[in-house]
């Protein structure tokens, strides 16, 4: 079956430091990966959509300078939260879509980021 792993599952970082999270697709080729953030008591916001061999598209209010993303192959993507502050805390999900089935996203369990 198609599975998506994310690690770490939970992390704590000091305010002003950076934190990298990873997303691994197993059982399918992830031609596109979307990164979302769920802030406390809120819904999921799309940060950026990364498609292999295409430029990464960031949504309004999110930038490459703050959330650099790497999507080097069809099974792996990573995103870093640079200079994390309190407002960056939340659950970060990656959703991966397989080749030929772009209307389906398989989600990982998320990385929960706490900022002290």
């Amino acid at each position, binding site marked *: 079956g198609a599975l998506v792993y994310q690690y770490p599952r939970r992390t704590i970082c000091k305010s002003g430091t950076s934190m990298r999270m990873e997303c691994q697709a197993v059982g399918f080729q992830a031609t*596109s990966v979307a990164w979302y953030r769920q802030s406390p008591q809120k819904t999921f916001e799309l940060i950026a959509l990364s498609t292999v061999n295409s430029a990464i598209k960031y949504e309004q209010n999110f930038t490459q300078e703050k959330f650099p993303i790497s999507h080097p192959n069809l099974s792996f993507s990573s995103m870093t939260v640079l200079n994390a502050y309190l407002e960056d805390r939340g659950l970060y999900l990656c959703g991966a879509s397989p080749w030929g089935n772009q209307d389906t996203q398989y*989600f990982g369990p998320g990385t929960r980021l706490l900022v002290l």
Partner: protein
Amino acid sequence: TQTVSQSDAHVTVFEGDSVELRCNYSYGGSIYLSWYIQHHGHGLQFLLKYYSGNPVVQGVNGFEAEFSKSDSSFHLRKASVHWSDSAVYFCAVSPFTNTGKLTFGDGTVLTVKP
């Protein structure tokens, strides 16, 4: 720009009751509609999706949703809920031309009492 509205922030029912969770959307083009479930402390699990054809789609665990173009709605239903259905339910839309870009509603917290 697509928007998704889930009018009920909280819904409470008893085990065995039927339930309907409402979702309304706005978008000018062709879209995919989907529902996801988030159990406490976990990520998202896919329930079902709709693009075209039969407006009633069946999902996992006895859930179904009905698309209505005239009402711009995609309400989720279950005939008989179980306590394990307690979770947060999110409705989402994505444009047909860019299906990797999901826009989520604010979510509905479903509480099923024994």
